């Protein structure tokens, strides 16, 4: 091992070192009993990591807000009925969130609809995993044809309408829809390959 490597393995960690959030037990129990101040303290402290975690899976604000609310409600119901909060409250909230997404997707499956369970499987929560996922998606995007990449950038990353995308790419709206469909088909295959 070179000196540089040795140094890296001992000292260099990513900046995003997570600190365990400490919420006092009495705050949790008072919140479960309906104490407004404690509920607000709990929500202020934990809404954002829970929301971000759920948003990552559903990718829209409407569902993320609803599921975040439901996760807090169910978690407080659990505290109330068991008289004792779990050791890792944030982890518990996220697990409840994943269960709610699963419930709603399971309903879709009961209605005969296909769901992609990979999307809701709990992730190991560390920056490294997030980074790897991001790299996986970015490298799959890089493998697309330039036109396919552009259509996904405009439509999904920049949020342009089909009409705006068509104008910018000098194509008809029907051609944009076809191009984005093919791009996503290919991308889904690339993502699958990497998995």
């Amino acid at each position, binding site marked *: 091992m070179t000196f540089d490597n040795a140094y890296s393995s001992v000292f260099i960690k990513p900046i995003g070192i997570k600190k365990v959030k400490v919420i006092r037990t009495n705050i949790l129990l008072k919140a479960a009993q309906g104490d407004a101040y404690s509920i607000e303290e*709990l929500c202020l402290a934990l809404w954002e990591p829970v929301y971000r975690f759920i*948003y990552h899976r559903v990718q829209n604000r409407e569902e993320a*807000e609803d599921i975040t*609310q439901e996760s807090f409600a169910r978690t407080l119901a659990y505290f109330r009925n068991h008289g004792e909060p779990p050791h890792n409250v944030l982890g518990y909230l996220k697990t409840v969130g994943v269960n709610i997404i699963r419930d709603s997707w399971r309903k879709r499956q009961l209605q005969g609809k296909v769901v*992609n369970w990979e999307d809701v499987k709990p992730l190991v929560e560390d920056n490294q995993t997030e980074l790897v996922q991001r790299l996986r*998606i970015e490298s799959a995007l890089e493998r697309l044809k330039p036109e396919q990449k552009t259509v996904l950038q405009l439509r999904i990353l920049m949020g342009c309408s089909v009409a705006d995308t068509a104008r910018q790419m000098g194509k008809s709206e029907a051609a944009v829809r076809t191009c984005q469909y093919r791009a996503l088909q290919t991308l889904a295959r690339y993502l699958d390959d990497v998995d």
Partner: protein
Amino acid sequence: MERKESIVSEYIDALNKEAAPGKTGNGVNDQELEQIFSAVRAVKSLKEPALPDSGFAQGLAEKLTTRIQERERSGTVRNASGVLAGQSRPKLSRPKWMIPAAALAACLLILAVMVSSPNMFRNDVAYAMQQAVSNLSSYHGVLEMRSNNQAGEEWLVRRAELWSVGDRYAVRQDDGTVTVNNGDKKWQVRPQEKAVAILPVLPDPTRQGFDLRDEAQRALQYPHEVVGSEVIAGRDTSKLEIRPPGGLAYHLWVDKQTDLPIQIRTPMQNSLQTTYTFISLEVNSPVEDHLFAYQPPQGYKIVQDDPGQLVATVEEAVLISGFAPLLPDAAPKRVLAFQDRMVLDYGDTTITEVSAQGSFAPAPNSALGQAAGGPLEVWWEGLRWRQNGLEIKVTGPQRVALAAEIAPDLTLPQVSHDLVSQAQVKVSVDMDIVRANQMQVDRGSSPWQLDPLHVAMTFVNLKVSPQGIIGEPEIGSASFKLELNTGAQAAITVSEGPVKKVYLQRLLRQDETGIWSVVGYDPR
């Protein structure tokens, strides 16, 4: 095939609108489509999540509280398993049938407000300005500062050319001095001294000196209305009048086309008035990269006084600064390490940590809360406290959220806390005098009225010497101690003399620019 393409397009449109895709009616039973939806979500995950409106956490807390309390009242507390079994249950959001009724009620309310307030529509200018400012990615402009006096004479004070792209900016003053912050390095080229001074990247007071965001924020904070239209620097603008409570009105001109502020004029104070005008402003257009490149002119000396080092990891920062910082959950964008301090950059918010020295002395005019079991100084846009041998200061819009992650017991001052009613003797206040005093302080005179300790000391010493204070006051500053300051009310204990405790209130403006008035006291 065409149907599938349309379904995918609708799915993307729904996510772009941040709506649940199911509600667009494109739920389908198709393995391939499900994989494509998954790919859409994967691509969108490269973007930052759309966060809820501000106040989401408070709204969430309110709904949870109401729900638990309603259950308490009705005695129908469900057990957790019942809840988790996926039973049909009321959502926390309002039932759907209520939406049209609530919308109708809201429309009627808005209509009533509009009828009673003809300025309602015109006030949207300030909101549009705030939106436009928040969407600003880059700009290049020339800012001119002019002063005029009561006699009508006007003169140019200075002119500066500005370039700003995201976190990077460059400012060239008309004397040739150029200040640049390219995100990694900040420096100032001083042609008169033939020197380049290397400056700390963070915190950066230069940026605050011309940041358009501050004015947009202030305009929304204080009462304001559109009072006319004018052409400024060739641009058609709306003229906004902003009235800080108890102070003199000032004006801001907002470009009608871009919704950006392009001119601000201070009130006439001490026979002087100053106007800042963007005589040219190009927004969201490309700015040349070479402006932000560090290239000291040949023959210039480099002046460097510990500008700090940008480091990749907190561990590296620890090696330079010699102490381990306390970190919030979120990772900082950048870490700047100095020999005696560490600065964590969260974009619009900065955390500075130093080893605590001596005793903690909050600014006398600051409001006091609690953090890490000790006092928390709440002063302008900053929070400061001590924890684990460190003094921590958080400045910027995200200060409360980040500080609460470091000190989970963080408690802000209770503004609603009623101290004044506890006073044994009430002191009547002449509001005309208070208004006159506030204007005097706004002009820059008698700043001591912003300090509750100083106001209390004057009050108590005038009780001792009603004929006036000559020379040193009889009861000195060491006898006065700030017991509580909520930002709106304060209590000060006095260790000697005829008064035991003084109660003060900010009667006109409950912010750092508002003066304090004595409204009561407890005799000894």
